C-alpha cells in the first residue's frame, strides 16, 4: 500500500550496508552499527508489509467464511441409472432431472417439462417466474422457453434437460468473465495515500539530497554524508503509518461489519464515505423483494393496506359484507400454500410454494383471516383452471362451508379488464347491483389510479351456481367448461406492489442531506420504478419530470424546458439512443434520476457516465447481471441474502441484511475514518520535523547528535503507534452527514495546510521543545550550549579521551558516548511529552478540545498511557541495553518540555478559535486542514 515508503526504507537499508562496506574496507575493526541499522530498517519494511498483508487477509477470510459454498448436486441419468453427482462433474450431453426448488446445475435445453417455472433473477434481476417447456419460441437463447440457465432456480414443476454448456461457457459464466474483464481501479483512499506518500517522499528525498550536497560541500566525508542521508530518510519516513492506517481501516471495517456492511478490501471502507452517487437497484435493495397487497378497492372506495415488513396493523374497514366475499375469493382462488413445518415462523417469513402474487395474497389473507388452509379445507375445491397467459384469469369452484347452502361457489381472479368482461353485476355493500356505466367508470378510475401507482392490479369476482342446475354430484370438467364463465358478480380490485423497505425513505433523506445523489437503476417498468422512487424519496414529493410538467401545463413534452425538471425517468430504450454527451448532460442537469427497463450493459454505461462527472460511484446489485457494473463502480455493494455469488465476488462490500439503510451507516463510517485518518497523519507527520531537525542542526551547527536513528524508530514504531490508532476512535466533530461528499480532486487527505501546519508550525515547536530538554541535560552535565557548538568533530573522535567541557573537566570517549545516548533519551522524552499535546490537539480540527470532550474517546488515554509506559520502560527498564542507546534519564528532565507542550495546545486552541470566528477568512484557508 505505502510502496513509496518501503522503497525509501530499502534505500536507507542498502545505504547502511554500503556505508558499512566502505568502513570495513578502510578499517577491518569498524563497528557493526550500520549493519544493525540497515537490518532493522529492512526488518521494519518486512514486518509492516507482513502486518498489512495479515490484516488484509483477515478481512478477506471473513468473506470466505461467509460464502460457505455448499457443493451443488445434480440428478443425472448415466448408464440408465439416476445418479446424484456434484454439479461441476457434469459434461455436455448429460441428461439431468430438475424439480421445484433445485438450482439449475448447468445451461440446459429442456427436453420435457411439467409445469416447470424458473426464477431467472440471478441472471436478469427480475424474480418474475418464467415457464419452461420444450418448445422453441425465440431465436435469442435468453428469451426462448426451452433453455434454462445455470444458477437460476426452478420454482415449481419438473423438467428433464440436456446439458449444453458448463462452467465458464455458461451464460452466467460469460457474464462473470465480463466482470473480471473490467479493470480494477485504485480506491480513492489508495490514491490519497499515494499522494501523501509522494509528498512525504518528496520532502524526504529533497531534504536528504540537499543536505547531502551541503554536507559534502562542508567538507564532510562522503561516508558521513551517506550516514546523514540515512538519518534524514529515517526521520522523514513515518515508518509506523502503514500499520496504523491498516489498523484504523480494519477497526472501521469491523465496526461496519457489526452494522451489516461487510467490507472485502480494507480500502473500500473509506470509498463509501467519499461516494457522491449511489446507483441503486430497486428490487430487494430499496424494496422488500416480495409482492405485497398495497391497496384494495371495493364498495367504490380505495382502501390502503399496511405494507410494512410485518403487516401488523391492517386498519381498513373490514365490516362490509363485500369484504367478506372478497376475502373469500382471495382465500379460495389461490394455489399457493405454506411449506409444512413452519408453525413457529411468523407469517410474513414463512416459505411459500407459489408465485409472487399468490404468495402475497396468501399471506395477506392469512394475516387477516387466520388459518387459510383450514378455510380452504372447509370450502373444498372441486375444480380449477390455473392462470395462463392467454386466459389471464384463474378460476376455481368450491363447495361452500355453509351446510345449508348447497350451491357451488365459482371464484375468479385475473387481469381486471378481463374479469370485468365476465361480470354483469357488481357488489356494493354486500348487495349485488347491475353493472351500469357509472359503476364501470368508477371501476376504471380506480384501476387507472392503482395502475398509476405502479402496482399490479387484480380483479376478483364470484358466482354462486344455482343448486338445481349444479347438484352436489355434478362433475365439473375444466376442459369442456361445462359451467358458466360469465355473468359473474364483480367484487373488488386488489393491487400489489413490491413495497419499499420501511427504513429506506429515511436513509434516502439522510443521503440527500449528505449530498449524495441516488440514481435508481432497475429492469422494472418505468411506472413502477417511478412510483417506488417517489415513495422512498428518490424523486422528492415536489419535483417533477419533464412529462409531469408537460401534463400539468398541457403542452407537448418537447416544449418543456428540460432544465425546469429536477427529476427524470429514463428507459433503457431512450438510453440506447443517447450519446455519451447527452447522458452526461442528463446526469448533470437532473438531480433525481430513475433508469427503468435497463439491461446489464446499460448499467455499466450509466456507471461510466457518472464516473465521467468525477463522481465516486457506488453501485448496489444482487444478480449476476449486475456484476460487471459492481466491478466497474468505485465501490460495488452486493446483497448478502439475495445476492448471487458472482455479485458478491465482484463487489467490494456486502450488505448482510440487504438493507439500503446500512449503506448510510457505511457512508458515515467511511467519512469518519477519512477525517480520522487525516488526524492520524497530521499527528504522525508532526514529529517527523522534530526528528529531522536534529540531523540538520547536527550537520550545520556541529552539535553532538541529538537523536539516533534507532531512537527515531522507537518513536515511530513504539510510542506513537497506539496513540495514532487511538485517533481512529475519535467521534465526529460535527454532523458529517450534513456535509457534501468530498471532491475527489480537491479535498485531499493530505492537503497543503495539513502538511504546512504539521511541519512548519507544530513540528517546529516540538523540535524547539525537544532541543530545550537536550540542552538542559547537556548543560547540567557540564556542556553548556556554547561549548556544544561545533564540537561534533572532536566529540566523535574515538581516540580523544580528554575532551574538555565548559568547566574544564575532561571526558573519555565512552563517557561522551554515554552522555550522547542520554541526550538521545532526553530528546526522545522531549518529543514524547509534546506528542501527548499533539495527540490531544489532533482530536479536533475545528472545534475546541473542550467542545469535543477530553474524555469521550477513552482510547486516546490508553494511547497516552502507552506512550508514557513505553518511554519509561525504554529509559528505566532497558537502560542497560547498549544497543538500544537508551539510558536512565533524571526524572526532572521528563518535565522540561511540558511548557512547550502546553504552548502547542494553547496555540492550536487559538488557531481553532480563529477558524471558528472567521470562517472563510485568510486564516481559515491557510490554517484549516
Amino acid at each position, binding site marked *: 500500500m505505502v510502496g513509496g515508503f518501503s522503497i525509501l526504507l530499502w534505500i536507507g537499508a542498502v545505504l547502511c550496508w554500503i556505508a558499512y562496506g566502505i568502513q570495513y574496507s578502510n578499517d577491518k575493526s569498524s563497528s557493526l552499527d550500520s549493519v544493525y541499522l540497515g537490518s532493522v530498517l529492512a526488518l521494519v519494511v518486512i514486518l509492516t508489509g507482513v502486518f498489512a498483508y495479515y490484516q488484509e487477509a483477515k478481512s478477506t477470510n471473513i468473506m470466505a467464511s461467509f460464502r460457505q459454498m455448499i457443493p451443488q448436486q445434480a440428478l443425472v441419468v448415466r448408464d440408465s441409472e439416476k445418479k446424484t453427482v456434484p454439479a461441476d462433474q457434469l459434461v455436455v450431453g448429460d441428461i439431468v432431472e430438475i424439480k421445484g426448488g433445485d438450482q439449475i446445475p448447468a445451461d440446459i435445453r429442456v427436453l420435457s417439462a411439467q409445469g416447470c417455472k424458473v426464477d431467472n433473477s440471478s441472471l436478469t434481476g427480475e424474480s418474475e417466474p418464467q415457464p419452461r417447456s420444450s418448445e422453441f419460441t425465440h431465436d435469442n437463447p435468453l428469451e426462448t422457453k426451452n433453455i434454462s440457465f445455470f444458477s437460476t432456480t426452478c420454482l415449481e414443476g419438473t423438467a428433464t434437460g440436456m446439458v449444453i454448456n458448463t462452467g465458464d461457457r455458461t451464460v452466467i459464466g460469460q457474464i462473470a468473465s465480463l466482470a473480471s474483464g473490467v479493470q480494477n481501479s485504485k480506491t480513492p483512499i489508495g490514491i490519497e495515500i499515494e499522494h501523501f506518500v509522494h509528498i512525504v517522499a518528496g520532502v524526504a528525498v529533497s531534504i536528504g539530497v540537499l543536505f547531502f550536497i551541503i554536507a559534502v560541500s562542508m567538507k564532510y566525508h562522503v561516508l558521513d554524508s551517506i550516514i546523514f542521508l540515512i538519518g534524514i530518510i529515517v526521520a522523514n519516513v513515518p515508518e509506523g503509518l502503514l500499520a496504523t492506517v491498516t489498523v484504523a481501516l480494519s477497526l472501521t471495517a469491523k465496526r461496519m461489519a457489526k452494522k451489516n456492511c461487510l467490507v472485502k478490501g480494507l480500502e473500500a471502507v473509506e470509498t463509501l464515505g467519499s461516494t457522491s452517487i449511489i446507483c441503486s437497484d430497486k428490487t430487494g435493495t430499496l424494496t422488500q423483494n416480495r409482492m405485497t397487497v398495497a391497496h384494495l378497492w371495493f364498495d367504490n372506495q380505495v382502501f390502503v393496506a399496511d405494507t410494512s415488513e410485518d403487516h401488523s396493523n391492517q386498519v381498513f374497514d373490514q365490516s362490509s359484507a363485500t369484504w367478506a366475499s372478497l376475502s373469500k375469493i382471495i382465500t379460495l382462488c389461490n394455489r399457493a400454500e405454506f411449506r409444512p413445518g413452519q408453525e413457529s415462523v411468523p407469517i410474513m417469513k414463512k416459505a411459500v410454494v407459489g408465485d409472487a402474487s399468490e404468495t402475497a395474497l396468501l399471506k395477506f389473507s392469512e394475516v387477516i383471516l387466520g388459518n387459510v388452509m383450514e378455510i380452504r379445507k372447509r370450502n373444498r375445491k372441486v375444480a380449477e383452471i390455473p392462470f395462463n397467459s392467454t386466459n389471464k384469469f384463474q378460476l376455481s369452484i368450491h363447495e361452500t362451508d355453509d351446510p345449508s347452502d348447497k350451491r357451488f361457489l365459482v371464484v375468479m381472479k385475473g387481469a381486471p379488464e378481463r374479469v370485468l368482461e365476465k361480470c354483469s353485476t357488481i357488489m356494493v355493500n354486500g348487495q349485488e347491483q347491475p353493472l351500469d356505466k357509472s359503476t364501470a367508470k368508477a371501476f376504471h378510475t380506480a384501476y387507472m389510479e392503482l395502475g398509476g401507482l405502479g402496482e399490479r392490479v387484480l380483479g376478483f369476482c364470484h358466482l354462486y351456481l344455482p343448486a338445481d342446475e349444479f347438484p352436489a354430484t355434478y362433475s365439473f370438467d375444466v376442459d369442456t367448461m361445462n359451467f358458466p364463465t360469465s355473468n359473474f358478480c364483480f367484487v373488488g380490485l386488489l393491487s400489489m406492489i413490491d413495497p419499499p423497505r420501511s427504513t429506506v425513505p429515511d436513509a434516502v433523506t439522510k443521503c440527500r442531506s449528505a449530498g449524495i445523489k441516488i440514481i435508481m437503476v432497475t429492469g422494472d417498468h418505468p411506472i413502477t420504478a417511478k412510483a417506488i422512487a417517489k415513495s422512498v424519496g428518490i424523486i422528492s414529493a415536489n419535483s417533477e419530470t419533464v412529462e409531469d410538467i408537460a401534463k400539468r401545463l398541457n403542452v407537448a413534452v418537447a416544449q418543456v424546458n428540460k432544465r425546469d425538471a429536477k427529476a427524470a425517468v429514463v428507459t433503457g430504450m431512450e438510453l440506447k439512443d443517447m450519446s455519451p454527451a447527452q447522458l452526461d448532460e442528463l446526469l448533470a442537469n437532473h438531480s433525481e434520476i430513475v433508469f427503468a427497463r435497463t439491461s446489464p450493459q446499460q448499467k455499466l454505461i450509466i456507471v461510466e457516465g457518472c464516473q465521467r462527472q468525477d463522481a465516486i460511484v457506488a453501485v448496489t446489485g444482487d444478480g449476476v447481471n449486475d456484476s460487471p457494473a459492481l466491478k466497474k463502480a468505485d465501490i460495488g455493494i452486493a446483497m448478502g441474502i439475495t445476492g448471487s455469488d458472482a455479485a458478491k465476488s465482484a463487489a467490494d462490500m456486502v450488505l448482510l441484511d440487504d438493507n439500503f439503510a446500512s449503506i448510510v451507516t457505511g457512508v458515515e463510517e467511511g467519512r469518519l475514518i477519512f477525517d480520522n485518518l487525516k488526524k492520524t497523519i497530521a499527528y504522525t507527520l508532526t514529529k517527523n520535523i522534530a526528528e529531522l531537525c536534529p540531523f540538520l542542526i547536527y550537520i550545520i551547527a556541529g552539535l553532538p547528535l541529538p537523536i539516533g536513528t534507532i531512537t527515531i524508530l522507537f518513536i515511530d514504531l513504539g510510542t506513537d503507534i497506539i496513540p495514532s490508532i487511538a485517533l481512529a476512535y475519535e467521534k465526529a466533530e460535527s454532523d458529517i452527514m450534513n456535509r457534501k461528499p468530498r471532491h475527489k480532486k480537491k479535498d485531499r487527505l493530505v492537503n497543503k495546510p495539513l502538511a504546512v501546519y504539521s511541519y512548519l508550525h507544530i513540528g517546529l515547536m516540538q523540535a*524547539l521543545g525537544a532541543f530545550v530538554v537536550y540542552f538542559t541535560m547537556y548543560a547540567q552535565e*557540564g556542556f553548556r550550549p556554547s561549548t556544544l557548538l561545533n564540537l561534533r568533530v572532536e566529540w566523535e573522535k574515538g*581516540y580523544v579521551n580528554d575532551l574538555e567541557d565548559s568547566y574544564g*573537566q575532561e*571526558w*573519555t570517549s565512552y563517557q561522551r558516548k554515554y552522555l550522547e545516548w542520554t541526550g538521545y533519551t532526553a530528546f526522545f522524552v522531549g518529543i514524547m511529552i509534546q506528542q501527548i499535546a499533539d495527540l490531544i490537539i489532533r482530536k479536533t480540527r475545528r472545534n475546541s478540545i473542550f467542545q469535543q470532550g477530553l474524555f469521550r474517546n477513552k482510547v486516546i488515554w490508553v494511547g497516552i498511557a502507552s506512550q508514557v509506559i513505553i518511554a519509561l520502560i525504554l529509559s528505566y527498564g532497558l537502560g542497560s541495553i547498549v544497543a538500544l542507546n537508551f539510558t536512565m534519564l533524571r526524572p526532572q528532565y521528563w518535565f522540561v518540555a511540558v511548557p512547550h507542550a502546553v504552548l502547542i495546545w494553547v496555540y492550536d486552541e487559538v488557531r481553532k478559535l480563529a477558524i471558528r470566528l472567521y470562517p472563510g477568512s485568510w486564516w481559515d484557508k491557510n490554517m484549516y486542514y
Partner: protein
Amino acid sequence: MVIQKEKKSCGQVVEEWKEFVWNPRTHQFMGRTGTSWAFILLFYLVFYGFLTAMFTLTMWVMLQTVSDHTPKYQDRLATPGLMIRPKTENLDVIVNVSDTESWDQHVQKLNKFLEPWEQNMRPVTLPPAQKNDVCLPGRYYEQPDNGVLNYPKRACQFNRTQLGDCSGIGDPTHYGYSTGQPCVFIKMNRVINFYAGANQSMNVTCVGKRDEDAENLGNFVMFPANGSIDLMYFPYYGKKFHVNYTQPLVAVKFLNVTPNVEVNVECRINAANIATDDERDKFAGRVAFKLRINKT
C-alpha cells in the same frame, strides 16, 4: 476505473509552470497574490519571532539553573580517564628515527602541551596572584569556600624538572624522539572536586599488553620516580575558579623498544578510588596506545 493520464506536451508543461510562477490574470506569483504573500510572510515573521523568543527565554531560564563554576551533575565522571601526549590519531605513536618530519610534529605538540607548566613557573613574568603555590606534598590542597565564594583558587606548582629526562628542558634529543627513546606523557582527566587516591598515594604503571608486547617493550623509566602522582594537585575546582591549574603529569621514557614492531602499551593508575576495569570504557583509569619505532 481506469485512470487515463492526459499526455501533456512539453510546451504545455512550460506554460503551466509559467502560469504558476506568474499568473497575469489573477496577479498571482507562485500561487499567491501579493497581499497573500505579504500576509503569509508577516505571519511567519511574527510566528517564528515569537518561537525564537520563547526558545531563547526557556534557554535563558534553563541556564539560570546552571552554575558558572561547577556543573550540576558529575555522575558520568565517576572514574577519570587517562590520556597520553603526544595526542596522535588513534593513539599510535610512530617514530621514524631517520625521518625528522615524522617525529617533529610530536615534538611540536609536546612543546605546546607543556607550555602552561612552563609559564606557571616563570616568577618574573607573572604577577604573584597568578603564580602557583608551592604546596605541601602528600596532602590534598583544599580551598573550601566556607560560606563565601573564595576564588580564584590557587593552583599548586608542578615543576617540569620533575619530569627529568622528559622535561624537555635543555634537551637536544627532543624528548628522546631523535634517538628512538621517546617520552610519552600520561595525564589523568580533570574532574571537579574529585579527591583522587582517597588520601593514599597513587602512581601510574605501564606494561606491554600481551607477553610479546612486554618483551618488545624493553626497559623504560618513569618520571617522577615510580610514576607517582601527588595528592596536592587535587581537588580540581574547575576552569573558572582554578585559574592556572596544571594537572600532574607522568612521563614514560622508553629506552629500548624493539624497532620496527608495533608494541601495545597499557598504562593504568593505581589509586584506591579509581577503578580501572570498566569493560565498556577502555580509558577509565587507564590508557592503551601503540608504540612503533622505525629504524633502518
